């Protein structure tokens, strides 16, 4: 009989056994228990952090409580989708006041910061939420139907191939090349700047997915050879042919008629 076995009837043995049992159970739980599901609903802490970021970066034009100033509209009701789109594509914070906020490459906030600001703006008033992955990836979307929807609703401003177009007084509809499906969805749902709102009751989420699939299919298209000239259509191509094509032909005609030296 060893020393431990000799003390097995000691009163402290029970306490020690319970303690060991607790430690083992706790460690097993910590190691093996499933992770709790991350809820996509915003938490109060996220909204608080978003409010701080908002006041530091956005309130100079949008007001301390996002109520709007002469320089920037009120953000009550624009929803998390608008924030995700505007900040996620680099349009906001706008570098300088102007009629159009262009997309920029430098996105000044991380994804968590954008989510925090979105949570704050969503807490102001109900508005469109960040859309589901199911519809924004474009997977399973009908490209032909998306093309038809695009031509009816979007092509008049954005051009039949999404190459962009002009609006009045310096505004423009930007080209739709290489944009994340999520941002395309959010732009349709929130109607940024001059763009009208195409909410889910106008173009349903499935139809939006079709439009995203159409735009992505244009991105994937290969150039069959030659200058695309911006895919703008007859105007740019006509200019090219009239200036260069006809110019070369006139040059040839002049050369043909000249006497040789």
């Amino acid at each position, binding site marked *: 009989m060893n020393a431990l076995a000799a003390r097995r009837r000691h009163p402290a043995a029970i306490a020690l056994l319970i303690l060991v049992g607790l430690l083992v159970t706790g460690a097993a739980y910590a190691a093996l228990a499933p992770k709790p599901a991350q809820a996509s609903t915003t938490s109060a802490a996220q909204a608080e952090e978003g409010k701080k970021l908002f006041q530091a970066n956005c309130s100079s034009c949008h007001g301390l409580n996002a109520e709007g100033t002469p320089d920037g509209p009120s953000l009550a009701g624009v929803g998390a989708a608008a924030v995700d789109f505007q900040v996620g594509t680099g349009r906001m914070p706008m570098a300088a006041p102007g009629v159009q906020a262009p997309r920029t490459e430098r996105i000044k906030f991380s994804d968590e910061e954008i989510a925090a600001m979105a949570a704050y703006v969503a807490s102001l008033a109900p508005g469109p939420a960040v859309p589901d992955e199911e519809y924004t990836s474009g997977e399973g979307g009908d490209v032909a*139907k998306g093309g*038809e*929807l695009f031509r*009816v*609703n979007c092509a*008049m*401003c954005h051009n039949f191939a999404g190459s962009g*177009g002009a*609006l*009045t007084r310096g*505004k423009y509809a930007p080209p739709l090349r290489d944009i994340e499906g999520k941002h395309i969805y959010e732009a349709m749902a929130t*109607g940024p*700047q*001059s*763009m*009208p*709102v*195409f*909410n889910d*009751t*106008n173009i349903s989420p499935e*139809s939006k997915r079709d439009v995203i699939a159409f735009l992505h299919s244009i991105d994937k298209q*290969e*150039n*069959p*050879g*030659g*200058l*695309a000239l911006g895919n703008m259509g007859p105007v740019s191509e006509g200019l090219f042919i009239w200036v260069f094509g006809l110019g070369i032909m006139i040059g040839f005609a002049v*050369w*043909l008629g*000249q*006497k*040789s*030296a």
Partner: protein
Amino acid sequence: MNEHGTEHGGPVADQRSEGYGSTAVRLDQGHVEGTGRLPARFENPGLPPHIPRAADLDDAAAKRAEKQVATMFGVSMLGTLVFIVAYFAIPMETQVFMPGIGKANLSNVVLGVSMALGLLGIGVGAVHWAKTLMPDTEVVEERHPMRSGDDARRGFVKTLLTGGTEAQLDRRPLIKYSLGGALGLFALPMVLQVAGSLGPLPKDELSKTMWKKGDRLVRDPEHTAIKATDVTIGSVFHVLPESIKESEHILEDKAKAAVLLLRLEPDDIKVAKARDWGYEGIVAYSKICTHVGCPVGLYEQQTHHLLCPCHQSTFDVTQDCKVIFGPAKRPLPQLKITVDAEGYLVADAPFREAVGPSFWERG
């Protein structure tokens, strides 16, 4: 060069002026009236002096020209060979980066450029050969008068007249008149073709659209009805009448019946009629521009302006689509809408005026 007059006084005598109607005058003589006649004959100035080419004078230059022509033909041969090889060698899917173009299909570009060089080389070489080495002395061809001799002319008239007499045309006027009638009448079917193929009369097609009272507004490609609650502020719906499905000429009817449905804050709409004809801030306007008929689809949500892409006519929705810029002269017609028992938007009346561009009978 001519010598001008030695002293001032009378008009200057130009040694070549004898055959001309007027003589040269100096600027300080004021207005000297000429005779205004042209001379009887212009002196033939003859051909310009012949300038020989380098290849005509210098043998080395001729050899150089020969080499240039041969080079161009050689470029053409090279191009053709490259074409033949590239046709088989380059797979059709390869995309290669090209400076100035970006990624492009290699096969198409190489085939095109090589074919171009192949043909251009032949043409440019031939032209250069003609310009440098082929003879270039000026040649004058006489143009002979085309008039036939008088005997031939008289003979022709005689043959014509005898033919008529021998056909008994002058003796038998009935033949003459009935022939005239038959030939004359036969011209009519030809004319009928031209006039008759102008198409059916439009009757009232220009003034009327498919819209009737009670027609539901449906979304453009999906053809689904629209509830008033679906339309939120800032939305734009592209709308057709529900009955467009039953149309026999869908495109013609769509070209008149296309309508834009918008929602604004009721307070933003400044014209009372526009508010009344809408429903709680939802207004419907014809999409067909009153200038030349393009669909006015560009809606700028913040400024409430509708822009036509063709000639940039701009319509202000808050002022009942009044024209604020551009060549259109009339505002867009409004469609009176309301809501039916189930909440779907319906037309309350057809368009009160003709949609689209002006036409004569529009009044």
